[in-house]
């Protein structure tokens, strides 16, 4: 997490502001719209919820991801993708899958945590 002491901003925090707008969409906008517009309002509320979760979980997930890449001996997802396509991980399938699974789980924890149970 970014320490509150590092920023010059007043309250509410970025997360609080997003939450306030999301709550307004969920409470007032969804009740006052229907059809396409209501669907798009729901999408907007979901997008704000994603950003709220990313603000909370993002920093820890970023360092966990760097550690995963280091264990696999690559610098980036781009390098990892290229190595997998070139069959350079064929002998390390179990290890690779475990690391990729953890990365995908982190992405879902931000994008759509409910999907992990589906």
């Amino acid at each position, binding site marked *: 997490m970014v320490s509150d002491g590092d920023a010059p901003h007043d309250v509410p925090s970025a997360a609080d502001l997003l939450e306030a707008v999301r709550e307004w969409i969920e409470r007032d906008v969804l009740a006052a719209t229907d059809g396409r517009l209501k669907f798009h309002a729901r*999408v907007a509320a979901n997008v704000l919820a994603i950003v709220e979760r990313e603000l909370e979980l993002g920093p820890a997930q970023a360092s966990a991801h760097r550690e995963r890449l280091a264990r696999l001996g690559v610098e980036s997802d781009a390098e990892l993708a290229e190595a997998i*396509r070139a069959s350079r991980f*064929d002998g390390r399938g179990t290890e690779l*899958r475990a690391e990729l699974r953890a*990365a995908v789980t982190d*992405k879902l924890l931000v994008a*759509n945590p409910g999907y992990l149970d*589906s």
Partner: protein
Amino acid sequence: MVTPPDGAADESPQAALAETLTAILDGATIDALRHLSGGASRETWRFTADGRDLVAQLQRPGDERDMLVEAAVVRAARAGGVPAPELLTAVRRDDGLAVMVLEAIDGETIARKIQRDDRFADARRRLVRDCGAALARIHRLDLVPGLVAADQVEVYTAALDELGQPHPMFELVRNWLIANRPPAVEPGVVHGDFRLGNLIVAPDGLAGVIDWELAHLGDPMEDLGWLCVKAWRFGGRSPVAGLGSYDELFAAYEEAGGAAVNADVVRWWEVLGTWKWGIMCIAQASAHLSGAVRSHELAAIGRRVCENEHDLFLALEGRW
């Protein structure tokens, strides 16, 4: 240059479209023209011509697919007993872009309504069987001139590379797809996007198969696998469109004259479809990011890529 007064030379796009439609529909009177939807490759409009409900699809600049071939497929499908809309006309305009005019079919395309609304209760009980029968008819069509075979692994590998956003999980799955590819079969006409959303459903069942723009030649099992991809279950538990079982689909398909179904081959296509939809999700977010179509809905789809990656894990672990 002298700018002409408003309304003289630059009439609204809507009025221009109405004029075009009158011209290609033998002077018909166009009314109630309204925009239905617009994607990256085309726009869809609904209108009446001399009182008849019709739909016009307009190709956008940059779309490389040939709409006139698609029109020929729609015409062949309808002649072959598939519930496809009647094609009134398809022409290429002076600007090189094609327009296709089709009969409007009454019914619902929104998955959530088809899956939940009371008025579709009867339709839900028979929809999987209707889909199996429609697919069997599509796959029996004679090859339509202009349709080309498209190796889906190659096409979507190229798409992924073009997008330039590396996804290690998609590489792992790509390797699996190549290692487990089913034996080649005699190519048939494949709809290419047969799923809820592209099916018009009436209270008594499947009323229309639309959106033939991804039609190509290939293994007919591709369409069965795509229909079962998790995204197209729209939250429903059952594998086929969230409404029915594999066995029900396969039995209906075979009963209607489709080839004997090998469940493992359909499963391979379902994995391919999940991988492909993941790549398409990246593409949709890119359409927003590039400015081609600014839309928070498309932007949000970028964060659904990981749902497909999760599904692919379950698939490779044999857990779906």
